[in-house]
Every structure is written in C-alpha cells, then in structure tokens.
C-alpha cells in the first residue's frame, strides 16, 4: 500500500493525473501545500471512484482559505495524523 503525497496544484501540474494512473485500491493520497487545490479540481472524484483514501492537510487548507470548499469525501488531517498515516502506509511516493 502506497502513501501518495501531492504538493502541486492540479490546475498547473500532472501530479493528480499521474497519481490516479499509478495508484491501486486501498492506497492513500495526502494533499499538502499547493496540492490542496485538488479539493476544488473537477478530477478529484476520480480518486474517490478508484477507492483511494483521500486526505488533505488542514493547515494548508486554512492558509489558502479553502475551508469552505472541502468535499465530504476528503478527510481533513493534522500533522500528527499525517505522521500516523505514514505509520499505516509503509511507503511514500512523493509526486
């Protein structure tokens, strides 16, 4: 099981697309930094449909004023929860 991390905006970068292509059922995706703009990207639902567990870092969401645009399908996490995810998922792929 992979922990994908995406830190680039999907509006200007292929990371979201690559992650979707090279992920498998049960993988987790963490959006951080500019990656949190994925929460408002039309292709976000593809990750949900692919049965990935999708997370986004709260600090990055708040800093960018996206707190009112978070879909229910994405779990909002703190840094300690991010660490906990790294414990659960043995490998990271940083896109």
């Amino acid at each position, binding site marked *: 099981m992979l922990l994908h*991390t995406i*830190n680039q905006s999907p509006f200007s970068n292929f990371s979201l697309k690559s992650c979707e292509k090279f992920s498998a059922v049960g993988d987790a995706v963490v959006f*951080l*930094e*500019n990656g949190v703009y994925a929460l408002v990207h039309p292709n976000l639902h593809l990750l949900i449909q692919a049965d990935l567990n999708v997370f986004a*870092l709260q*600090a990055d969401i708040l800093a960018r004023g996206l707190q009112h645009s978070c879909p229910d399908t994405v779990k909002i996490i*703190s*840094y*300690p929860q*991010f*660490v*906990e995810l*790294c*414990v659960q998922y*043995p490998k*990271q792929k*940083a896109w």
Partner: protein
Amino acid sequence: MKFAIAVFGAPYSSQASLSALHFAQAVTLAKHELYRVFFYHDGVLNGNNLMVPPQDELNLQNAWVEFAATSKSELVVCIASALRRGMLNAEETRRYEKTASSLDPAFIISGLGQLIDAGLQADRLVTFN
C-alpha cells in the same frame, strides 16, 4: 517507529522546508524516533545562517536549529549539493579558499550516502520536495 525525513526544497521559494519542519515536530511529539533529517537539492539552503527574513516571518534556519536542539535530531546537508550552492562550513571554507562560511554549525555536512543510509535504517523515509 524510526522516521527519516528528506527535504529537497529551498526555504521560502518552496514550502517543502516548512512542511517538513511541522512533520518533524509531529514525529517527535508522537514519541517516534527521528533518525535523521537530510537536506538535498535546494534543501541545503535551509542551513544558511546568513538568512535574515523580516522579523514578523519565521526564520526557517533558526527554526530547524531550535528543533534539532530540543529534539536532539541530526540535521545533515549533502556536501555536493551544499558546495554547489555556496553552503560551506568552516572546514569547507578553508578547503575551497573562500572568505566566509554560510552553513550553520548545527548542520552536519556529509555525503549523499547518508540519504541512502536513512532509507535503509529508518522504517519510514518521508520526502518533502
């Protein structure tokens, strides 16, 4: 669990360093072991002790040094990346006949082998690029 962190991004030009710092603090807060923080690529610039950000902004170099002091964590910069970008400690300053050193003494200058070693020895290697 034993964690290692790799930081690839320059301070301020990328968020990698700030994210890695928050993550590192969370690792130690959760009582995990932090085996090493390895700075590569532009990440070596986090060791720049000449950085002077405005007083109402976080000084990332200071923040890393304080974190290392309180958590007893090891901060390592890749020597090849560091030399290329002018991050020299006193010894390298002498070796390359330069006039000033720029790398904070809290950062250890070492080889890229330390990144590989971190990947081998730690249970988790988390990269901030």
